[in-house]
């Protein structure tokens, strides 16, 4: 807990509240020590002598580039390709079933909180390999609050560690090339994903209704009232009967009436018709 001691309580609170205001993410007390570790590179880059100096500058301007950067490095962006294999099997099955229902309309999928792109690119690989039953490959919209994470997703460039975590080797050689010791997704893969910046706690969802929304491991550190609000927002972006996928250990139960546990797909939640329709009508 060295970090926690080194940062004064007030400074910690300021940084914590900046993060929460901007993203809804609360820093749990037992993770507070990470603040200092995470901010070290920012200090170095900006030639600031101490965290107190950084906080001083932040107090001067809580918006702007420095605040953006601080928020960015404090976000937990851990992810991997095909994170939770069972979920991807179910996504494939659910998408196939839905496509059969909706006929020739193009299926729409939203990866909300997509981090550095592994989640939407995994979906893109999945559907590139699974063309049968789909008149067109599903549209994949991927959003995150972090501009830096999105930039990495768009570049589709990964370290050796990132590329081999969760990604089967056959897919790796099929969809990626090596460039200077890193792994770069082929343009025809990245092109299948639309990356956009969006803050789940503040911005409107991407336009139109989605059939499937993945919002995994994003709301873990939201307060309960905020989770309710975000579920409302997700409900407004999904068609009645659409499916919401949360991370392992996340649930809608007790937090919203817009979604109920799916019977067909474990850990998936179905958008209840009327509520979603009402919200849609309300704008």
């Amino acid at each position, binding site marked *: 807990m060295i970090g926690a001691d080194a940062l004064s309580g007030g400074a910690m609170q300021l940084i914590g509240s900046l993060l929460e205001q901007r993203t809804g993410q609360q820093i749990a007390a037992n993770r507070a020590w990470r603040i200092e570790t995470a901010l070290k590179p920012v200090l170095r880059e900006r030639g600031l002598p101490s965290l107190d100096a950084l906080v001083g500058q932040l107090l001067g301007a809580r918006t702007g580039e420095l605040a953006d950067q601080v928020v960015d490095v404090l976000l937990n962006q851990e992810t991997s390709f095909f994170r939770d294999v069972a979920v991807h099997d179910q996504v494939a099955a659910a998408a196939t079933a839905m496509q059969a229902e909706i006929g020739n309309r193009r299926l729409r999928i939203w990866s909300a909180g997509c981090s550095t792109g592994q989640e939407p690119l995994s979906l893109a690989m999945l559907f590139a390999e699974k063309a049968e039953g789909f008149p067109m490959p599903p549209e994949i919209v991927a959003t995150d609050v972090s501009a830096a994470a999105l930039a990495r997703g768009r570049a589709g460039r990964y370290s050796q560690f990132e590329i*081999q*975590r969760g990604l*089967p080797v056959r897919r790796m050689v099929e969809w990626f090339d090596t460039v200077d010791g890193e792994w770069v997704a082929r343009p025809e893969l990245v092109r299948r994903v639309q990356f956009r910046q969006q803050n789940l706690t503040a911005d409107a969802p991407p336009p139109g209704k989605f059939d499937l929304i993945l919002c995994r491991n994003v709301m873990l550190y939201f307060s309960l009232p905020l989770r309710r609000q975000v579920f409302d927002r997700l409900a407004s972006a999904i068609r009645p009967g659409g499916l919401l996928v949360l991370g392992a250990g996340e649930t809608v139960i007790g937090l919203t009436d817009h979604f109920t546990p799916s019977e067909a797909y474990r850990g998936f939640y179905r958008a209840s018709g009327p509520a979603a329709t009402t919200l849609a009508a309300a704008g």
Partner: protein
Amino acid sequence: MKTCLVVDDSKVIRKVARHILETLDFEVREAGDGREALDSCLATPPDVVLLDWNMPVMSGMDFLRALKNSGIEQRPKVVFCTTENGMAYIRAAIEAGADEYVMKPFDRETLESKLQIVGVA
């Protein structure tokens, strides 16, 4: 409990791999080269082989071919685990029948995810 045979001429690497595999609930066996590994597989096939590329006596690739030709009934899954990280090596390994490929250095999560992919974890 699943069994993993760790094949590497470096004792240190075998130790690191053993440690990770034991935390993943594997029973671990070791071999220092491909020849030893082949004997071990023919005697009692493990569920999975973690295979280095460059080794004395018999290389990883030679082991893989020999295993294929051995007529062994329950062929173990084979996961290459090597510092040969070029695309050409990886393709060659897949062609020779490797089921997965781990580039060194690796961590616990990576190894665990690869073992899941081949269906032994």
